[in-house]
Structures are given as structure tokens and as C-alpha cells.
């Protein structure tokens, strides 16, 4: 084959790829949970890319040039909203200058919109730490909120790509049916542990706790966003002993050593939790698989660690 014909062939292959890609909706999700649900709903009609790494803190994402490029080319942007991405997404959007993704456009999906968020502060005071004016933004740990997000994502896809709207709705139904059935199973699995208390590193689990009847009210951070201090950790250890708390949860971007230290001092179990599919090994497949992992590991740890001092061997 001559050089010219080879380069001609390459040109056609590339041109065809671009044409096929242009056919699909280009979707950018800020975090992996939205990305996974977008794939569930879009199927092969969408090309999804996720900005934050699943192990990264969604509050703080290191900006890279490709993020601006992706946003510039995207048809749909899915973010959590409620100030989760406020530190890094707005400047990237400024750089991308994509009119389709301007705030308020139907293709800029803010999943928190329409949700009643927990912990909306009555007064704003920076002294209380990293407080979000709109409420706690880690709402996706409640499957019903994920259902809401899925509906919003589906509506945006249908608006951006009307010919395939019916297909998106069909896939949304399949997803929500599966999720609803799973939610019943998860609730049943955690029912024996209703009222049990856990310690977390950061206040990212109030929605999960509320849905499954748990209490996650002690945190390794003294205030949201403030690194643990020795005095605060001593208080945590004392409180764990007093309230007989046997499980500590940490996420990949948090300092696991702090959790290990507290767990060692109290004999508690340290669980690797994550809010994002792929944040912990075995959660890569999607949102439902992530919740499966969380519920299974938690149920197992709670079952093994008894409910009160008398019952322990």
C-alpha cells in the first residue's frame, strides 16, 4: 500500500469515528456516581466522561487542561450542585465557554435541585467550618435521591436528543425498578441494626444514615474540613467507648491512619467506604453495585461487633 492511500484510509477511519461520536450525546459528569447513572440511562446513545477521580475529594479537584476541553465539547453537564463542586467547576466552565452548559440551561443538570437537603444552616458562620449554605451536598448516598438524580438526568437527555427520548425513559424505568427493588432488600438487610451508631471521618453520610435508620453523628474532623487534632481524637475515643460504637468509616481521600489509630484504641472495625463507584475495589460496576458493597460490608461489620457490651464474648 502506498503512503498516500494509507493516509487516506486513516483519514476515513478518523472521519468515520468522529461522525459516529458526533451522533452520540457527549456527557460530562463531575463525579463517578452521576457518571454511572448517566451510562445506565444513556446506554450506547451517550459518551460519558467523569471529571473527578472516584478516589478524589469532590470538594477539591485539581484542574487539568482536559477538563476544560471536555466541558467545551459537552452536550450535557451533570453536577451535584448544592455547592459540592463550587471550588473548582465554575472557573473550569468559565474557561470552556460552552453556551449549552450555562447555568439554568436544560443541559446543565444540577441533581440537587428539587431535593430537600439536610442540615441547611440557619446562620452562615465560617467559624463552624466548611459549611454549605444550601445544606449537606452528599445526598447521593440515599438511593431515593439517586432516583431523583436519574430522573433529572433522563429529562436532560430527552431535551438534548428528542428523537431518542422514549429510549431514555425506558432505560430510566428499568433503572428505577431495579433500584426500588434493591432498596427494599437493603433496608431489610440493615433493619436488625436500626439505631446503631457509627463514626465517620467527614459528615458525608447523613442521608445514608437517615435512610437506613443509623446514627452517624461523631466525626474524626473537629469541624467539616478541619484536620483532626489530638484533643478532638481523644474526645472521639472517649465518646466511642461511652456509646459503644464499634464501626468507623473512612473514604479513600481521607487520612486512613487517623481511622486506624482510633479503631486500634477502641477495638472498633475500620470500614473503607466511598460515595463514588470505583472509589473502593469492587464498586466499579455502577451505583447499585456501590450501594450493594456499602450495605454488605456494613451489615457484616455490625453483625460481627455485637450490639451491647453484655452480648460481647
Amino acid at each position, binding site marked *: 500500500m502506498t503512503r498516500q492511500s494509507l493516509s487516506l484510509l486513516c483519514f476515513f477511519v478518523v472521519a468515520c469515528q468522529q461522525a459516529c461520536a458526533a451522533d452520540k450525546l457527549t456527557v460530562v459528569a463531575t463525579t463517578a456516581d452521576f457518571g454511572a447513572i448517566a451510562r445506565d440511562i444513556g446506554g450506547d446513545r451517550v459518551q460519558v466522561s467523569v471529571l473527578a477521580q472516584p478516589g478524589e475529594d469532590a470538594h477539591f479537584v485539581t*484542574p*487539568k487542561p482536559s477538563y*476544560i476541553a471536555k466541558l467545551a465539547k459537552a452536550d450535557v453537564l451533570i453536577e451535584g450542585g448544592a455547592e459540592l463542586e463550587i471550588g473548582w467547576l465554575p472557573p473550569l466552565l*468559565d474557561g470552556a465557554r460552552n453556551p449549552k452548559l450555562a447555568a439554568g440551561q436544560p443541559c446543565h443538570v444540577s441533581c440537587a435541585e428539587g431535593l430537600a437537603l439536610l442540615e441547611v444552616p440557619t446562620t452562615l458562620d465560617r467559624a463552624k467550618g466548611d459549611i454549605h449554605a444550601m445544606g449537606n451536598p452528599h445526598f447521593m448516598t440515599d438511593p431515593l435521591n439517586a432516583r431523583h438524580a436519574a430522573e433529572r438526568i433522563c429529562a436532560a437527555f430527552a431535551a438534548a436528543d428528542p428523537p431518542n427520548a422514549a429510549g431514555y425513559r425506558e432505560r430510566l424505568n428499568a433503572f428505577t425498578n431495579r433500584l426500588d427493588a434493591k432498596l427494599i432488600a437493603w433496608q431489610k438487610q440493615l433493619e436488625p441494626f436500626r439505631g446503631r451508631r457509627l463514626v465517620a471521618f467527614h459528615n458525608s453520610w447523613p442521608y445514608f444514615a437517615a435512610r437506613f435508620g443509623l446514627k452517624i453523628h461523631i466525626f474524626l474532623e473537629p469541624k467539616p474540613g478541619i484536620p483532626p487534632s489530638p484533643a478532638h481524637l481523644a474526645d472521639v475515643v472517649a465518646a466511642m467507648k461511652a456509646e459503644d460504637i464499634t464501626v468507623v468509616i473512612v473514604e479513600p481521600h481521607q487520612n486512613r491512619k487517623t481511622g486506624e489509630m482510633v479503631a486500634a484504641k477502641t477495638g472498633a472495625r475500620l470500614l473503607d467506604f466511598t460515595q463514588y463507584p470505583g472509589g473502593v475495589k469492587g464498586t466499579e460496576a455502577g451505583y447499585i453495585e456501590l450501594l450493594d458493597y456499602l450495605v454488605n460490608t456494613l451489615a457484616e461489620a455490625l453483625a460481627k461487633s455485637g450490639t451491647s457490651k453484655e452480648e460481647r464474648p
Partner: protein
Amino acid sequence: MSEAFEIMKWPLVACLLLPGILVYFGLHIVKREIIFVDLALAQVAAFGICVAILLGHDSHDWQTTAWSGALTFVGAALLALTRPSGKRIPQEALIGIVYVVAAAASFLLLSRSPEGNEELRRTLVGEVLLVRPGEVLRTFALFVAVGAVHLVFRRQFVLLSFDPERGRSQGLRLWWWDFLFYVLFGVVVTSFVRMGGVLLVFSYLIIPAVCANLLATTLRLQLAVGWAIATLASIGGLYGSYRLDLPTGAAIVCALGVTLLLTGLWKGARHIAGQ
């Protein structure tokens, strides 16, 4: 390619316009053998940013600039006062202490602030990728003003760094010129730290100056070489950051490091060939 340009346009403008004056200051600093003074002043500037953040100001507020500038001013005065007269305590020791204490103090302050870790990272590597056009142009105007002062008083400043003994014998008030030098230097460092972070400031100051000293002997020629090297490394670093999708500031620092390595190798090869 046009997409690359579209995304990297303002970082590129910033990295072409702003390092000019840093390279010039770098030549002074390398000549005075006070290499870490910039790291120390940059860290003091960053410490000022931390104070402002803890007081509840945003990193783009004017109060942040004021805090950062005021503390840099104090640092500059301190460094000017301690120009070594005897050799008992080298000035380098004091510079090192200023750096370490400013860094540790920033760390302490930010441990009380939400988003502290994030700010700490930002003061170190900056966010060149997300520079705002207005910020770049304002900073450039400031640098032009500082450059003008240096141009007007170039005799004094050059004597000060390159031949202080002759300056003294000509009746130059070294303390006053030293102070002015450090203040202007502090202004430049402060405004660039907010954009590029401590690492990038240090690299733009020192690496082109070192390369220039390897390749040229007169100040004019050194300036030309330094500017050429800063420009090349900026473009290389930005391109690498775009192609390999790396954090921009750190990519430019590494590109500058590679330029120094290549300059050293070339110089070595010429040396061997010359023998």
C-alpha cells in the same frame, strides 16, 4: 491545535508576559548568592494569603493582596537589615529560617481553616490553568511599573548586586537600595505567587538565571538567554500539560528543570569538544 490554543491561551499569555521581570530579578539573586531569598519571600507572601483566608477573605479580595503585601514588606525589611557585614552568620541561614517558619506558620493557620489543605496545595503549585484575563493584565501593568523603576535606577541596582564594594566607595547608601530592591522584589513575588504558586515563582527566578550564567557573561546577554529559556520552557510546559493532561504549574516547573539539564549537557559537550 486551535482547541489547545483556546484552552491554554491565558495561561500562555501569563507565562510569556510575566516571567520577564522574574528572570531579571533572578540574575540579581543568583549573583548575590541568596538563592533562597525568593523562596522565603514567596512563602511569606503565601503566609499573608493564609492569614487573609483565615480572617474570612477570599483569595481574590483586595484584603488578601494587602495582607500578603504587608507581610512581604516586613520580610523584605528584615532581609535588608541583615545584609551580611561579617561572615559569622551567613545570610542564607536567616533566609532559610524565614522560609521554614513562614511555611510552618501557614500550615498552622490553615489547619484552623476549612479547605486548608486545598489552599496549602494552591499556595505551592498555584492554578496557572485558571488565571483570569484581568488578573494577568493587572499583574503585567504592575510588573512594567517595577521594571521601569529598575530601568531608571539601573546603575544603583546593578552596582548593588554585582559590585557592592564599589557601590559603597561611590557613596551609595546600600541599606536604602537594598530595602527598595527587596520591596520591589516582594511586590513582584507576591502578585505572582497568587497565580503561579511558590514552586513556579522559584523556578522562573532561578532556573533561567542559572542557565544564562552557564551560557553568557554580560548582563545584557544573560537577560536575553534567560528570557529565551523562560519562553521556551513555558511553551514546552504548557504544551506538555495540554498533551499529557498534567497540572499546569508543576508541568512548567519540570519543563524548566529539563531545560537546565539540556543546557548543562550542551555546555558539558562543548567543554569536552573544546579540549
